[in-house]
Structure formats: structure tokens, C-alpha cells
């Protein structure tokens, strides 16, 4: 037990993730310049800093600066928050289900949130109230009921059955889209557009007002799950084991379900359905630093931001000046990985 080995250890368990973290911060900085500087209304990296002191950048007119502060900046902030939340709720759902395939969009949480939110929008047209204000809360309730339902149905004597979990997800996704389709017949024109944009996901609706409305929910979810990362980590080795190590697992699971629903609900209310981020990102983070949440979760959240910023920028770039829904890009990245993971995990399933 020499000090040499001890140092080697600290290096392996503590310092190694820092390398990846630094790299991620670098990527996020570069992507920030890219996503704020480049877009349909102006194509210059200096735009990313010009809004800080417009008097020094005479080459840009007031309209361009306005585009940056009112459109690109809120969109950037939204991408960062959504990336953090989707990556973290993905990792938390996987801890809750003790399976790396569980992701809020696959097991139906996002679709459930969207279903309730769309019902809310459709009803608001009928009953004349402003849906926008309460939308994050409505989709939180949708997410919460689906998470509880999925969890209870797929639980068999303290074990989560992954087959049931994914089948229930398929059923809930199908149901949610059917209900959304049905409701769109009752919606008026403006609601219809809103509904359309939901099913694919987009950051295009970003505004400071929207962010302000949803941020209490987003922050609660972010901070709450972050504080639970040590006990959640024990959940990864099994519920009984975690209990024997002193974790009150029933309380922990309840908190995780509520916090995941808060985060996913608020994200769906803001951006619609952005799938697979919670699957892809934790998977990559685990490949880099292993499954321990103390190392993995911070990296996972930064990678979530990177994936969101990159996908959103691609979504704006590919068919400029129009834009693709960001959900298309994340699904193109995520679905093949999901299939790969299923093939890889097939043997562990029974």
C-alpha cells in the first residue's frame, strides 16, 4: 500500500474526467461563437460579441444586434438549459430503471408530457384562456403521470423489467401521438401550428419570456437531481444493495421521478419532443469515464449542451434560410445507437 499506488488511484478515479471536462468546455465555447455568430440574419463570428458593446462594432446595424439579443441569445440559453436537463434526466432515468436503455423519450415520458400539453393548447382555444403561461406545468403533470405509470407497470419484485419498460414506452408513444392527432382536429389554426412544431421539436420558439416562465422548473430539476447523484449512483448496483448501504430507496425513487418529470415537462413545453439525447449522451459519457455518477454526470451534462448546440446549429444550417426541426437531427444520431445498444444488450435481457 505505497503512496505511489494511492496517487495512481486518485489519478484514475478523480483527475481523468477533468481532461474530458476541459475539452467539453472548449467545444461549448466554440459552439457558442458559432450558434450566436452564424445564422440567417448575419454571418460573422464577431456578432457573438458585438452585442456586448455595439458602439465598437460599427459594421453591424441595430437590426442585426437586435436579432442577436432577442433571437440568437435566448435560443443559445435555451439550448444550454435543454441540453443540461435532457442529459441529466436521461442519466437519472437510467439509474431509476437500472438500465442504460431507459430514456425519457423512449419510455414515453416526453410523449406523455406532449400529449397533456397539446390537450391543454386545444382546450385553451375552446375555453379562451392563455395556454402559454401554464404550459410547463401542464406538461409536468403529463410527464409525472407517465413516469409513475411506466415505473409501476414494469416493476416486478424490486426489479425493473426492461422488456416491459420499452413495450410500455411503445404503447404510450403510440397513444400519445394518436391523442395528439385527434386533438389537432379540434384545434384552431394557430394551435395547429403549435401542435405541429411540438411533435418534431424545435428551439425556434425561444424567447426570454418563455425561458423565464420555465426556469423555476428547469432549475429545480437540475439542482435536485445533481444533489442526488451519490445515492442514485448506488441505485445503479441494485435497489437492495443501495438499501443495505443506507439509502432510503423508496424516497429516493419518488424524488427522482418527480424531478425527472419536472425537467422533461418543462423542456417539452418549451421545445416539443427532442428525442434520444438522454440515451446518446449518457452512453458517450460512460464510455469516456465509466458509469460512476460522480465522474459521469458532470461530463454527461456538458456533452448534452454540446449535442444540443450542434444539432440546433445543424438544424438551422442544412436548409437555410428555413430550418429543420431539431428532433430530426437528434433522432438521426440517436436511433441507430439505440438499435446498436439493443443488439449489444440482447444477451443480458432475460
Amino acid at each position, binding site marked *: 500500500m505505497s503512496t505511489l499506488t494511492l496517487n495512481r*488511484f*486518485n489519478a484514475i478515479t478523480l483527475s481523468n474526467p477533468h481532461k474530458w471536462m476541459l475539452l467539453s468546455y472548449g467545444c461549448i465555447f466554440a459552439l457558442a461563437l458559432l450558434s450566436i455568430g452564424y445564422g440567417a440574419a448575419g454571418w460573422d463570428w464577431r456578432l457573438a460579441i458585438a452585442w456586448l458593446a455595439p458602439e465598437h462594432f460599427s459594421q453591424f446595424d441595430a437590426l442585426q444586434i437586435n436579432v442577436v439579443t432577442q433571437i440568437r441569445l435566448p435560443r443559445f440559453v435555451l439550448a444550454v438549459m435543454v441540453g443540461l436537463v435532457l442529459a441529466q434526466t436521461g442519466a437519472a432515468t437510467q439509474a431509476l430503471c*437500472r438500465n442504460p436503455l431507459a430514456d425519457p423519450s423512449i419510455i414515453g415520458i416526453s410523449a406523455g408530457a406532449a400529449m397533456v400539453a397539446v390537450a391543454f393548447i386545444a382546450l385553451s382555444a375552446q375555453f379562451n384562456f392563455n395556454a402559454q403561461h401554464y404550459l410547463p406545468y401542464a406538461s409536468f403533470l403529463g410527464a409525472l403521470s407517465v413516469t409513475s405509470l411506466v415505473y409501476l407497470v414494469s416493476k416486478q419484485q424490486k426489479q425493473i423489467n426492461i422488456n416491459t419498460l420499452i413495450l410500455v414506452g411503445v404503447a404510450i408513444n403510440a397513444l400519445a401521438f394518436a391523442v395528439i392527432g385527434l386533438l389537432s382536429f379540434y384545434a384552431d389554426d394557430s394551435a395547429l401550428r403549435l401542435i405541429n412544431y411540438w411533435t418534431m421539436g424545435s428551439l425556434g420558439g425561444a424567447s426570454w419570456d418563455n425561458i423565464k416562465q420555465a426556469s423555476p422548473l428547469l432549475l429545480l430539476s437540475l439542482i435536485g437531481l445533481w444533489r442526488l447523484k451519490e445515492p442514485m449512483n448506488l441505485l*445503479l448496483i441494485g435497489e*437492495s*444493495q443501495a438499501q443495505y448501504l*443506507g439509502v432510503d430507496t423508496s424516497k429516493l425513487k419518488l424524488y427522482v421521478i418527480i424531478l425527472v418529470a419536472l425537467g422533461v415537462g418543462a423542456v417539452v413545453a418549451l421545445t416539443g419532443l427532442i428525442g434520444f439525447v438522454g440515451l446518446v449522451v449518457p452512453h458517450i459519457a460512460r464510455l469516456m469515464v465509466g458509469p460512476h455518477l460522480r465522474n459521469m454526470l458532470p461530463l454527461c451534462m456538458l456533452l448534452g449542451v454540446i449535442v444540443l448546440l450542434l444539432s440546433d446549429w445543424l438544424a438551422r444550417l442544412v436548409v437555410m434560410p428555413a430550418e429543420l426541426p431539431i428532433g430530426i437531427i437528434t433522432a438521426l444520431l440517436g436511433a441507430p445507437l439505440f438499435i446498436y445498444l439493443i443488439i449489444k444488450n440482447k444477451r443480458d435481457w432475460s
Partner: protein
Amino acid sequence: MITFNNLNIGFNTHRVLEGISGNIQAGQLVALIGENGAGKSTLLHTLAGMHPFEGDILFNTKPLHSFSKEQLASKRAVMMQSNHVGFDFSVFELIAMGRYPYTESLKTQANKVQKYASIMDLTHYLTRRMSALSGGEQQRVHMARTLAQLDAFTAQTEPKLMLLDEPTSALDMRHQHTLLSCVRTFVEQGNSAIIAIHDLNLASLYATNAILLHNQKVLQSGSINTVLTAQNLQQMYAMKLHVNPHPYNDAPMVFSQRQEFS
């Protein structure tokens, strides 16, 4: 240390154990012996506070349910029979999880992990991932985690309890003895341990006491020499057995006979 009276344990309508009583004192290493499905694991997990039960369990003279999960975590540790972990932790990380109940610096934690890893012969495995280990090596990692959870080899202020469910099932002979001698040392410091085990001769060499479970009840309990008799074992396993003293230390050794398939 731990006393249980008139325990009834069941799953749904299926009764697993009926009217079980026993008293395990500090300094005892108890072998829990029974056929497959006799309820050994169920009894262990009930004593650990996991299953609901009818009857009384007193842990250090206080009712088991008066302890919170957090309090229990530093007083008793459980090593489960099936330890499959779906996520690929490193050996170091997994053993360090045993230190969850304690607030300590990462450096102290690393020291404890190294100490118990070396006891289980795992010093060179610490940076490996669990998926790169064999079944027996993984079992040793879980044992090291159990030892780390109780900080088994430091002076204890109060007696602690170790509950092990077939801890030697995947181990080679040398490591079976390493593990059991380690439990024996732990017990001799004034703690106790209950081990569900199928290898009667290993049990005989290391246990001080034994409980035989048969037909949902305790068939016989007491010191290992009085319990491991040919009569008791033949009744339990319904087969012919011989019990002879060990040539060096007189511990009862159990020999079975070759049978014809019928």
C-alpha cells in the same frame, strides 16, 4: 447481538418460513444450512431488514424496525447471492461504495478501499472494470465491499453483524479459505456473522454454530459439532451420509456416497 422470535415470513400467500426462532451472540459465526429453496436467503434478508415479517427481531436488544436504513448501514452489511451489476464500474469504485454510510475524505476512503482489496487479494485489480473479471473475482470484490462497509478490521465500538449469502460459491479452494478465515477473524473480535453455505465441510472448519432449515422450520440449531451429525443431515437431505472427525482437528467432516441414477 441479534435475536429472532417466532418469525413468520412469506411472499404474498406463499409461506417461506414458519415459527423460526434463534439467538446469535457476539463472537458467533453461524452457518445457515438447508436445501435449495429452504429459505436461507429469505431469512438473511429478513434479518437485514429487507422483508416484512411477523414476529420479533431484536438487533442489539432493540427492535430491528427502530433503526433507520442509515443507522443499520454502519452496523450490519449484506453480501447478496446474485451480484450482477448492469453498469461496468471499476473494482475501486465498487469497493468504495461500501464507504457510502461514512463521511470521510477521498484519501481516507482510498486507503480503506486498498486495505480491504488487499485482504481479498485484489490489489492488482483495482483499476480494472468488473466486466473484465471472472465470477469468482467479482465475488471477492463484493466481499471486499462488505468488509469496507463495516470497516471490519479496525477496533469496533459496538458489535457488528455480517450477513453473507453463499459467499464462497464461485471461489477456488484457496480463496474460499481466505474469505472464511477473514470472517472468522472478524467474528473473534466480538462481532458476529451468519453465512448461508452449501459446503458442509467448509462450514464445519470455520463456523462456531449452525442452524439447519428444513420444511420451513428450524430442524436443529446449536454449536457446529452438535448440529452436523449424520442423523440430522440424513433427515434433511434424505440421503445416506457419513460424518467422521477431521484427522487433524476433530471437526465433523461429511462424506456422501456415490448414487445410481434412478
